[in-house]
């Protein structure tokens, strides 16, 4: 978008001319637009009124586009590693991982790309929080935690308070269960 500054500006200014011209060429009228705009009192007539209204519509559309601060890129590739049977064991890490921020007080912020499912609902991924000294904890963003309700706003999930309490590994002596493999279904 940044590289196309002139194209975007040209489009925003010139595009509204087309419907304005067509409307007043074939349906001439004395229509007008008046009212306050950005502290000014406007009173517009004829083709320019239509142009101004469409210009505002186009400008507000461009305002809804993603900002220049974040760009979504796609990286594609193919890995040659003979003998790999379990593709799920293949991990590709991003370093530094700019999608997440962690602060010394153990607060975190993660930016996610969330696709929508066939019914248009967000198809949230799961989050696994892990540390070598603690048991891993899984967060399902589509459901509440066992002892905590997830606070969801438009595009934000807030897991604050004492919801995420990691338990130390092997803190209590454990009963070792026998393990009996059951037949596959």
């Amino acid at each position: 978008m940044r590289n196309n500054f002139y194209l975007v500006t040209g489009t925003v200014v010139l595009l509204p001319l087309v419907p304005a011209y067509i409307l007043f060429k074939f349906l001439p009228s004395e229509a007008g637009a008046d009212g306050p705009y950005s502290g000014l009192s406007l009173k517009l007539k004829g083709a320019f009124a239509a142009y101004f209204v469409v210009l505002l519509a186009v400008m507000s559309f461009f305002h809804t586009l993603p900002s220049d601060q974040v760009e979504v890129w796609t990286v594609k590739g193919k890995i040659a590693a003979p003998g790999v049977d379990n593709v799920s064991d293949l991990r590709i890490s991003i370093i530094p991982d700019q999608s997440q921020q962690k602060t010394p007080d153990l607060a975190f912020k993660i930016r996610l790309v969330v696709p929508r499912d066939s019914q248009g609902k967000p198809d949230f991924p799961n989050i696994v929080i892990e540390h070598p000294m603690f048991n891993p904890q899984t967060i399902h963003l589509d459901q509440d935690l066992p002892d905590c309700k997830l606070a969801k706003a438009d595009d934000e999930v807030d897991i604050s308070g004492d919801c995420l309490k990691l338990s130390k590994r092997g803190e209590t002596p454990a009963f070792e269960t026998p393990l009996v493999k059951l037949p596959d279904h």
Partner: protein
Amino acid sequence: MKYLAKCTFIAVLAMPVLGWAANVRGKLERVAGYPAGYIRVTINCAGRRTNSVYTGGDGFYFVPKVPAGSCVLEIWNAKDKPVSFQIQVREPSTQVPTVKLP
């Protein structure tokens, strides 16, 4: 003393109602010898399945609040068909031997 014994007896009886349960932990490994990370694990006790958890990168998993008793450990190595093991869950903590996955 008699009062204390009575209270203890009532507390023991009320345990299942109060939802006392065990933490179950274990590790998944590939037969090749490395940890099986980020694999989905559930435990099914008497037809009630726990929330799924995922193993960490080191293959360890931790399932909190599992009701004590005979349960089935389900490891979702494949997406729609778990590998299942019978386990005995005891409070407060149960350790499952390392499971080797293909």
